[in-house]
């Protein structure tokens, strides 16, 4: 090392030089971040957004209060709010720890060893489990092009059929059975058969009034309607749902009710959601309906089949490939959907409907996965 070189090695970098190196590193990181497209998870049907801050606040406020006391066992405030909303009497409503839990309790009460629980299939994957836990046999009735077929259901009803459960709109196909058909089905059921209508996704249908089927409880004492706060209200974490029955079914409803009621934090969140949640719900509903129609229009020129969905998801089948293969191809385009194998039909996949950006990505991924595009541009992702 020469004399001058020896001293030059003690030269420090000035601020501009240091910042230039940092700026270059940040630019590289940003470029890499843009290349890394995050996976869009459309495999579950719950709300991707955080709940309304006021709803959370109500629950937190409750948590900071008198948690040493028992909650209102009968959840009177919620009961009153729901009764006003649905134009029914409070005795006809029971709040529980999620619709699935209420449905399970109802199945325990109505089913016994050797009886049957009948359901269209594919449908909500918990129904067979509910039947087996109650000691009953699960009987499937085939769908007609993805739609619940009342005639097929009636054909399967036998002496041992104590309960029929219909998910309406049906998870995973998204199809909706109108209240007129439900009423007709109820009128033709034998005395020993109850109909449980699981309306977890009913807020997303745009065919008729959302309470149309619920009003049938006034005429049919063996109808139970289940609703949840997990989907449209986005409160799956608090586990809340309710069941509505006929005025003459109050003793059955009282038996379905959870012992000592629902916890105080859940009650606070649900009550606040009922007070202020309608605007958010209507906004979400409008978005889902708009984006669902966009998906339907987009697949018209693709080799893709889709039953008309009335839920916040679509049930897709691509010609010539299995649901698993379609899910794998979509995942290559960074869009994750639920393969139909675990949901009842391995030819299909279920994709949740979210906002416009998610719809763009789903459509691009479908085109890319089905070979209609070489590669989706980064701007589309």
């Amino acid at each position, binding site marked *: 090392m020469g004399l001058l070189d*020896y001293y030059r090695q003690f030269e420090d970098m000035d601020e501009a030089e240091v910042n230039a190196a940092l700026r270059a590193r940040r630019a590289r990181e940003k470029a890499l971040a843009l290349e890394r497209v995050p996976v869009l998870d459309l495999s579950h049907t719950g709300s991707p957004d955080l709940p309304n801050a006021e709803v959370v606040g109500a629950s937190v406020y409750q948590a900071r209060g008198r948690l040493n006391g028992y909650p209102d066992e009968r959840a009177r405030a919620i009961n009153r709010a729901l009764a006003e909303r649905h134009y029914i009497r409070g005795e006809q409503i029971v709040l529980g720890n999620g619709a699935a839990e209420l449905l399970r309790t109802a199945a325990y009460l109505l089913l016994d060893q050797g009886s049957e629980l009948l359901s269209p299939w594919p449908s909500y994957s918990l129904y067979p489990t509910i039947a087996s836990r109650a000691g009953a046999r699960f009987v499937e009735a085939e769908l007609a092009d993805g739609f619940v077929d009342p005639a097929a259901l009636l054909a399967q009803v036998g002496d041992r059929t104590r309960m029929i459960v219909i998910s309406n709109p049906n998870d995973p196909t998204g199809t909706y059975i109108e209240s007129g058909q439900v009423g007709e089905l109820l009128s033709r059921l034998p005395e020993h058969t109850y109909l449980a209508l699981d309306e977890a996704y009913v807020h997303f249908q745009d065919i008729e009034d959302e309470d149309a089927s619920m009003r049938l409880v006034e005429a049919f004492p063996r109808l139970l309607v289940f609703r949840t706060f997990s989907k449209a209200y986005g409160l799956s974490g608090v586990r809340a749902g309710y069941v509505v029955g006929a005025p003459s079914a109050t003793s059955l409803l009282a038996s379905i009710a959870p012992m000592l009621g629902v916890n105080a934090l859940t009650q606070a969140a649900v009550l606040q959601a009922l007070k202020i949640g309608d605007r958010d719900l209507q906004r979400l509903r409008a978005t889902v309906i708009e984006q669902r129609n966009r998906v339907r229009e987009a697949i018209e020129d693709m080799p893709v089949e889709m039953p008309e969905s009335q839920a916040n998801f679509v049930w897709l089948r691509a010609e010539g490939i299995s649901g698993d293969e379609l899910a794998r191809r979509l995942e290559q385009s960074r869009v994750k959907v639920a393969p139909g194998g675990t949901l009842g039909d391995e030819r299909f996949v279920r994709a949740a409907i979210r906002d416009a950006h998610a719809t763009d990505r789903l459509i691009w991924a479908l085109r890319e996965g089905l070979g209609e595009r070489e590669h989706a541009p980064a701007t589309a992702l």
Partner: protein
Amino acid sequence: MASNDPTETGGLFIGRRPGTAPLRYREQPVEAGTARRRMDSVIAAAILVAETLLLTTLWGPQPAGWLWIGAQIDHSTDSVTLGILVAFVGMLTTIFMTIALAMRLDRMWKLARRASGHEQKKGALERIFVISMAVAGIAFLVWFLLIQGPGPDLAPRAS
């Protein structure tokens, strides 16, 4: 006890306090032996003295020298304007050249100080500039008031 350190923010701002950033070299310098570092220490001191002397010339020798040159031109050409012009242009030129040279010396001083083992972050130019101005100002006042004495209007000499 209250702090009067303007850089002590009491944790108000997250990050390093101003002026406390470590030196950043492009590559870690190769350390020399003790003898070489001592020699670098002497070189740094010598550079500092040279820098001080150089900057001190700004406050006396250089202006006086250019005024003398201006006076000579005035005398030989009988042009006051030309004399003043040459004096001022020359004065500004040498002042800028001196500062440029002082900056180079200051950079050399920093490198020599670092080579001698000190974490020398800043140069000494600003401080020397101010100190030399103060020294030159005091020297001028001593000369003006005590040695040379004020002009006849302020303190007329006894005839």
